[in-house]
């Protein structure tokens, strides 16, 4: 028996997908021209499947800061944050994040994945309970595997189900920690955070919110969903990432917990990995400053979201339930999704293909993302290309045929 025989069904499925043309999980961008355009297979392609919500990847201030830091501090730290890997910039970014969120403490991780892995696996111990939303990201599920706590899965965005699960645990002495996301990454729907906060308060639980997709997108100053809903005081730990609206890579956690600093010497995904390169730290500091001082980027993003979502809805596409920087187009079958994805790429539009089981409710999705840097013309073009592809694949009925029928 070969080492990877257990993956045989997956390998066959992947081979079948690849046979349709380009491998959707192996797309290579040969050149990136801007936050919204790249060269893929020799063709100028509109990027509408990223997480570059504010378009800061080519921001001149972020690039200048990164370049200067690299020249002054070198290409990498070659060590852990608790050994030789914490430079002045790392600490300054942690202070800047804490200040941005109005919190006492901040901690930077090397990826958003590790931020979730580290915080969620460490906040709950062997006698405690982690109650996670069923649609949480893989990093949260993996954090649960690393944790010694009892893991309970609650129905997606269902505060009544959460309430019942906490009620069942009412007589158990351990701490209960609820984990939710601000905006969910596949359909773009938001957590009913005010209701979740109310349940949390009533049961004396703790609350961790992953604002990965909502930082820079929601809230009066861009702090995310909890700020938008006015329940920041109920959130005990905010986790987030630098790889979406901040245009780089890395993760963070901010909190007012008085013992927060102990995490630096107990949180393994923080301790046993090299810290971020100084150039990344510098570009993220500049990007965070931009989020704080340029609300116009957020406003432009929301205008673009409205343009894309409304146009797609008018054309008859079945979308996620809420407007947001992620617009998920629901498709009836994986075959149609793969075919449509391929046709879009051939027509010069890149979106993400999301197939079950990595999607909610087993539905295949074309995951489109909106960027503040998209022009109205780009978005209109995208809607036209999507509509043509939808007619060709039979996802939407072409008007001529509808009239004839």
């Amino acid at each position, binding site marked *: 028996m070969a080492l990877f025989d257990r993956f045989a069904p997956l390998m066959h499925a992947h081979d079948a997908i690849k046979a349709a043309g380009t491998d959707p999980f192996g797309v290579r961008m040969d050149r990136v021209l801007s936050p919204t355009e790249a060269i893929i297979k020799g063709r100028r392609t509109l990027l509408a499947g990223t997480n570059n919500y504010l378009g800061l990847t080519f921001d001149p201030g972020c690039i200048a800061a990164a370049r200067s830091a690299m020249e002054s501090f070198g290409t990498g730290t070659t060590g852990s944050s608790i050994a030789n890997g914490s430079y002045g910039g790392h600490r300054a970014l942690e202070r800047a994040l804490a200040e941005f969120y109005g919190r006492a403490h901040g901690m930077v991780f090397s990826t958003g994945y590790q931020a979730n892995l580290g915080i969620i696996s460490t906040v709950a111990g062997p006698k405690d309970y982690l109650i996670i939303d*069923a649609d949480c990201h893989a990093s949260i599920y993996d954090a649960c595997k690393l944790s010694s706590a009892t893991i309970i*899965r609650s129905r997606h965005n269902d505060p009544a189900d959460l309430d019942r699960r906490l009620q*069942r645990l009412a007589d158990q002495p351990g701490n209960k920690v609820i984990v939710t996301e601000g905006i969910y990454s596949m359909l773009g729907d938001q957590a009913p955070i005010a209701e979740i906060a109310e349940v949390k308060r009533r049961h004396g639980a703790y609350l961790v919110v992953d604002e990965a997709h909502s930082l820079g997108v929601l809230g009066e100053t861009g702090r995310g969903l909890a700020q938008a809903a006015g329940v920041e005081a109920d959130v005990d730990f905010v986790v987030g990432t630098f790889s979406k609206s901040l245009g780089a890579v890395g993760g963070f956690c901010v909190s007012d917990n008085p013992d927060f600093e102990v995490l630096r010497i107990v949180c393994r995904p923080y301790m046993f990995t090299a810290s971020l390169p100084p150039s990344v730290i510098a570009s993220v500091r500049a990007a965070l400053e931009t989020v704080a001082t340029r609300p116009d980027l957020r406003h432009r993003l929301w205008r673009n979201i409205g343009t894309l979502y409304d146009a797609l809805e008018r054309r008859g596409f079945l979308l996620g339930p809420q407007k947001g920087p992620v617009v998920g187009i629901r498709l009836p079958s994986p075959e149609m999704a793969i075919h449509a994805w391929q046709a879009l790429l051939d027509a010069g539009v890149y979106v993400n293909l999301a197939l*079950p089981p990595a999607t909610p409710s087993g539905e295949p999705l074309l995951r489109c993302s909106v960027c503040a840097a998209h022009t109205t013309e780009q978005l209109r073009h995208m809607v036209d290309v999507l509509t043509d592809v939808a007619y060709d694949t039979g996802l939407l009925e072409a008007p001529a045929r509808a009239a004839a029928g």
Partner: protein
Amino acid sequence: MSKDFPVTSVRHAAFEEVARLLQPFRRHETPITRDTDITADLDLDSLAVMNLLMQVEEKFDISIPLNLIPEIRTVGDLVQVIEQLTEGA
């Protein structure tokens, strides 16, 4: 609920309910027994298993910790977990 429920009837109810929920996933006419392997003998993928567990949780007013799922292979294993959690309630 389970406090007023004799253990034997919980056990019987658990098996009956699980068997009922699994009916749509039967292959051919093979009956569902305690030895039925939930993923190998039935047409359930991992997502369907998670949905099944949610239904079981609602029916019996329990939460099945994800930590227990690697130990649940057969219908009998699931029934046993339901029994444990309803007895402990």
